[in-house]
């Protein structure tokens, strides 16, 4: 499932606060199966999220998103989140999202221009996150070329597969 990073993503924002932990995103201890996880993701902060989230919605959050464990946020993609846009992401959550090709963007100042329920536009090629109603925008951090390649490959295991096949082609 490759992700062309040089596209534009638009969706309705679900807004969260600072330091949202992976225990809330992926409460795997209590719900080991993905089908159950999908019913309970983010309930620690917004019990209505799992019921009301729609495919194509965008998750907006404050600083240190995905702090805590090394668990991935695959469940957010499973419930239809098209992009995660945060003030800052915790290191392991960022690595996870890159390695599984989950669209994630760090855009300092984003929580000041996007309110819950508003439309948000993520324009990676232009390096901006935009509120199309107010016209306000903030810069997002571009990724180094290697990271863009991993996104395009569909994630690090897929990237690894391509390398392995290349090296064992003869």
């Amino acid at each position: 499932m490759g992700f062309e990073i040089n596209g534009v993503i638009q969706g309705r924002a679900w807004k969260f606060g600072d330091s949202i932990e992976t225990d809330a995103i992926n409460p795997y201890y209590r719900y080991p199966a993905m089908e159950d996880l999908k019913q309970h993701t983010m309930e620690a902060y917004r019990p209505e999220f799992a019921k009301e989230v729609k495919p194509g919605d965008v998750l907006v959050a404050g600083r240190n998103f995905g702090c805590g464990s090394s668990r991935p946020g695959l469940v957010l993609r499973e419930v239809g989140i098209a992009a995660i846009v945060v003030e800052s992401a915790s290191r392991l959550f960022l690595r996870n999202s890159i390695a599984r090709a989950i669209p994630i963007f760090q855009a300092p100042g984003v929580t000041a221009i996007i309110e819950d329920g508003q439309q948000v536009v993520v324009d990676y090629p232009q390096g901006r996150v935009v509120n199309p109603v107010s016209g306000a925008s903030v810069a997002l951090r571009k990724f180094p070329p290697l990271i863009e390649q991993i996104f395009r490959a569909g994630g690090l295991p897929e990237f690894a597969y391509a390398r392995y096949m290349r090296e064992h082609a003869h």
Partner: protein
Amino acid sequence: MTGQTIAEKLFSRHDLKGGQLRAGDMLEARIDGAMMHYHASEPMHEMALQAGFKDGLPRVWDPDRIFVLVDHHQPTLSQKQADENALIRAEVERLGINCFHDSEPGIAHQMMADYGLMRPGELVVGNDSHTVSYGALNVGGTGITRADMFYVLLFGELWFQVPESIRVVLNGTQPNYPIAKDIILYLAGKYGDDFAGSMSIEYAGTLVPQLSIDSRMCLSAHGVEVGAKLAMFPFDEKTREFMATRTDKPYESVAADADAVYEKEIVLDVDQMPFVVARPHQFGNVCDVNEVKSQKINQAQIGSCANGRFEDIEIAARMLKGRKVAKGVRFLVSPASQHVYLQCVKAGLIETLLEAGVQVITPGCGICQPRVGFLSDREVCITATTRNFKGRKGSMNADIYLGGPLTVAAAAVAGEIIDPRKVFDGL
């Protein structure tokens, strides 16, 4: 050209291209060791299939540099765990991985230290966030994700960005009880729970030579709770002694240059630091213990990769000698590994704890998760473990406070959160 930080030296040493790297540089690094716990089988296999490997992972890059320690799931607490462990065992055999511990309970990170599976100056990754704890031994330990591990297993390499460094200077005198937990909580409270976000912490100051390896491991493990990629201690005589009894393989420790450049510096005088706790439900929600005094508790705990070591259990036993756990309070203590457990037994600590009414729990991660010692609605727990997120011990309507082992032991005796100096003499 200015000098290099520990992180810059560590990553330069491991750069496949042999560069002299600086903070911000990207690199592909050579990995010295890879630690895996319960993700070793099914998630890896699924990723392999998804990526295109029809028969699963085709190989591992070096069967002697991969360490599989099935900590979270030992002893098994469900049929599912037993079945998962059987799959892991089969996968380890198929791939020819030589270092495999699946019949011994304990926390993988502590066992990595007990068995000398990592050495100063190495770059060691693990698919667990608390792998950063190896920095206590001057090892470049850092947590990675499962998909990162997939890449490491195949190639023994991984991409990194060299982190900026933050110098945390701890000055003062080590009292006759551990204060590592109070230090990291205090810093998280004062500077925020991401004050070292994606950075490398280098510990320095007059307290550092006085800190035990146990205390250093607590501080380094909690690097991840403040966002750090690395949480490094300098190599000294204590590190040398610790390694000498655990490995005979050579190593080259890593130190910063005197003119290394730091993004920021934090100085803490530990002599002026109060006893602190983190209130529910975040690590950085910290206050003086006296601000929450008289809060009744149902459960107290000491354990985990942050506080399941000898000195954490020793202080509890020392304080509980001749005392009883308050009626109605469940006090759970879980040594970090079988080595630590045996150390505690030989020192007579376990007998003291049992006489005081403590429940001693098999080593492992269960005490820090909703696996051992669940909380019910409206129950309150104070714990010297890693995290206090909502639902961490079961009920979403329970409150978890984090504190040092001394503060936890005091609360267990008093039945409520209290300044330890009000309970124990001789502090």
